[in-house]
């Protein structure tokens, strides 16, 4: 081949690079490994990574069962190793799948249009806010404090550099957004109110009431949904203007936090301000139905600095996982699945309540709840770890005002025996704190 090109050596081909920058040594990366060594190396890492623990963690990343056919299907090279379907005639598989994905997301969220995916739930929420800013021409945001704290951080990053002021709206004793406070914080420059439901504390918000308040003030309502399985049994926020979802719960592995699948859904009238790819139906020259990427004038490759977003590569293959998951469970299965989550959670919350305090009892919840213990939950968790159980997420870091609180999550995969073990250890913790306290009290009495 060198001869065909007319080069003497491969180094000739690199002559455009100024000599002084060319690397004259080997890169200092690990030596070349055989496939068997690579597998062994990662097996070792896998073992170091809490293989085979039962988990009560949720908080934006949910452990649900993943039907086997998801990986069987997405592993087909025709899906796995294809690029973005710009050449429609040899990409109809991907395109029809996206179209179905968009359609199902619409069915589930009650929205009219949905895009092909965003990076994740956090960036989807931030992009939704930017979209509301463009749609309303207003330049500030009210954000629920019960929105996932990391989503809030991401929004802050995006907003800060765009000089987008944002106010935080707090939650009440029932875990729901404080509506009075909310109403007051919305100004004539508020582009949108951004809430999460079920929110980070597991509570289902009254989206209708919030929408009414927001709309009354000419502001939009953006709802973030981080636990997609809730849509099987929880009424979607149909009154929202934009829904920013994290669809990880639908068949996407926890995978230490990614890749996940963000999605935006909205009303038809807002579609031209929605970022992200869209598949649309059309016909070929013989009138046969087919699908193409469409409304590209929203996108960076056409509009450059005037695009709705800079997003290009999205989460296509993960969206395909989500798609297959939704197809597997479908109309009936999703409801039954959600119901099992509800039942497990109700049982767990009930058991915990016998020994300690469950916060935000007043409102409906889906599969997460906050337990307040006398002892630091981190300490309880490290004892649970010995039982190969990962306890609920300590909230001190995010909500110091809640004290010794932790966010527990149950899904259809949580076994009763894991719940009972966890409850047992929490109960023990409570007993020993109480005993210690009584001892102190007793001492004080004797003194």
């Amino acid at each position: 081949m060198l001869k065909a090109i007319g080069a003497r050596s491969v180094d000739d081909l690199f002559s455009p690079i100024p000599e002084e920058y060319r690397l004259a040594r080997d890169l200092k990366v690990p030596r070349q490994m055989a496939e068997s060594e690579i597998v062994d190396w990662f097996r070792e890492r896998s073992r170091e990574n809490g293989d085979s623990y039962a988990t009560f963690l949720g908080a934006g990343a949910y452990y649900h069962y993943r039907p086997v056919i998801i990986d069987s299907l997405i592993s087909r090279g025709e899906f796995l190793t294809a690029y973005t379907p710009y050449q429609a005639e040899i990409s109809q598989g991907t395109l029809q799948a996206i179209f179905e994905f968009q359609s199902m997301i619409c069915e589930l969220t009650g929205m009219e249009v949905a895009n092909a995916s965003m990076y994740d739930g956090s960036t989807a929420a931030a992009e939704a806010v930017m979209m509301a800013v463009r749609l309303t021409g207003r330049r500030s945001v009210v954000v629920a404090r019960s929105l996932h704290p990391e989503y809030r951080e991401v929004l802050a990053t995006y907003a800060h550099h765009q000089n987008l002021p944002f106010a935080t709206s707090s939650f009440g004793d029932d875990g729901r957004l404080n509506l009075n406070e909310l109403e007051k914080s919305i100004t004539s420059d508020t582009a949108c109110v951004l809430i999460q439901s079920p929110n980070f504390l597991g509570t289902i918000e009254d989206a209708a009431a919030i929408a009414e308040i927001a709309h009354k003030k000419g502001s939009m309502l953006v709802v973030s949904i981080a636990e997609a399985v809730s849509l099987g049994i929880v009424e979607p926020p149909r009154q929202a203007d934009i829904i920013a979802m994290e669809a990880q719960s639908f068949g996407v592995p926890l995978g230490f936090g990614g890749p996940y699948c963000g999605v935006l859904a909205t009303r038809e009238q807002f579609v031209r301000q929605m970022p992200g790819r869209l598949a649309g139906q059309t016909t070929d020259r013989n009138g046969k139905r087919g699908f193409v990427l469409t409304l590209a004038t929203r996108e960076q490759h056409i509009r450059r600095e005037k695009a709705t977003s800079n997003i290009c590569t999205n989460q296509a293959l993960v969206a395909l996982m989500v798609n297959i998951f939704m197809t597997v469970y479908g109309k009936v299965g999703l409801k039954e699945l959600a119901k099992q989550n509800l039942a497990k959670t109700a049982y767990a919350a009930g058991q915990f309540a016998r020994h300690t305090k469950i916060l935000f009892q007043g409102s409906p919840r889906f599969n997460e709840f906050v337990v307040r213990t006398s002892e630091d939950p981190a300490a309880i968790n490290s004892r649970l770890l010995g039982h190969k159980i990962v306890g609920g997420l300590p909230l001190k870091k995010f909500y110091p005002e809640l004290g010794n609180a932790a966010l527990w999550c149950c899904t259809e995969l949580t076994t009763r025996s894991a719940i009972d073990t966890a409850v047992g250890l929490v109960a023990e913790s409570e007993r020993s704190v109480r005993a210690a306290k009584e001892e102190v009290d007793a001492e004080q009495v004797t003194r």
Partner: protein
Amino acid sequence: MTRKATRHVSQNEGLIFEKSSPGKAAWKLPPLDVPEVDASALLGSAERRDLGNMPEVSEIEIIRHFTRLSTWNYAIDLGMYPLGSCTMKYNPRVNELVVRLDGLANGHPYQPEPISQGALRIIKTLSDCLIEITGMDAITLQPAAGAHGELTGLLMVRAYHQSKGAPRKKILIPDSAHGTNPATAAMVGYAVENLKSNSQGMVDVAALTAQMNEDVAALMLTNPNTLGVFEQEIHKIAEIMHAKGGLLYMDGANMNALVGKVRPGDFGVDVMHLNLHKTFSTPHGGGGPGSGPVAVKRALEPFLPRPVVLTRTDGTPACDYDRPQSVGRVRAFYGNFGMFVRALAYILANGPDGLRQTTEDAVLNANYIRKGLEGAYDLPYSTPSMHEVVFSDKLQAKKGVKTMDIAKRLIDYGFHPYTTAFPLIVPGALMIEPTESESKEEMDLFIEAMKSIAEEVEEDPQTVLDAPHSTRVSRLDETAAARKPVLRWKPQN
């Protein structure tokens, strides 16, 4: 017509909704081991009663649905996929295995650090490798794709300048740049100023000198640029930027031309992103997911997104959240971790020698194709090519045949087309990147196909204009799709 492809029977398949009927199911739940609950009682008005038109189908129908759909796609696994700028290289299957190992696939991002050591070590090892490969000083793996990396990088540029007093106003971007570059600058609140290319397709250093001033925060440069040309005056460019306190941002989309041969950190780059889904072999998956790590020089390190993974004194990896100057988070959790696993597996499979060899092969292949097609297609810039080559449709346009027509005809020849959408400085561009993965045999078939099309354009342009002829659908009407968008299925009634 071609030795590369023929036609074969292909299954039709409706929309999944069209296959749905009540009572069919592909799911089964285990018996509940806790008491059943009354959803209405628990949820009250929040209870959902109806799931609309969600489908009901059986498992074999789902397998067939997606299997049939898949057969309508072209893919790297089927043949050469020479999309310029996309680096459609082979996606090793071992990567797909290791990412599915239980401890990695089921690791929760919030699980306690003592049982997260495996994942953190992967993050740390990959970070170290990428720092070494780029010649930079620090890195974040949080961004989810290239464009997200650009955003992160420019946020850091902004924070850097802010820390010096003011964020500055503008980003300089060559006219050959990918669309994400200007779009990103706009998102970060910068004005975009276009930088003209010179006759060789490179940055016009004189123009740069003229345009550079204290209002310019950074130059966003792709190197090799989107013509596949290495910016030979890169050092001068960096100097001009630095002299006025500006930063040099490098879009690393084309790192496949450089790995193991030259390091951006060595030629003056201050901040850059990588695309793990290009250079480091993670699969494109029909459009994503990707991963866009951002590597920076020491001066920008304080501004890295939170958290940063570092090594404790005892040698164990850990997360550092205490980063007061950080731009903040750009994504929840750690980023597209699954892509880190794959990229690291790729690096381990190659090692120092393999990485260098890969780059050499990628450049060799692009030049082989360039040589093969010279003459048949117009080469607007004769500057030496690195990993890709950009032709134009100038010769064919005389017959009314455009780059997109040639692209569609290539489909009949059994290939995926090259990139047609950019660079904008080449009207009617044919941007071809074979990557190192292609064998001489496959490239010869490609050259043969392209030459044959060039002949067809001369002899029978209509055949090319009407292409593709061999696909299950003929050319699709994109205009109609955009004029009256149908973006979801709805029940007919």
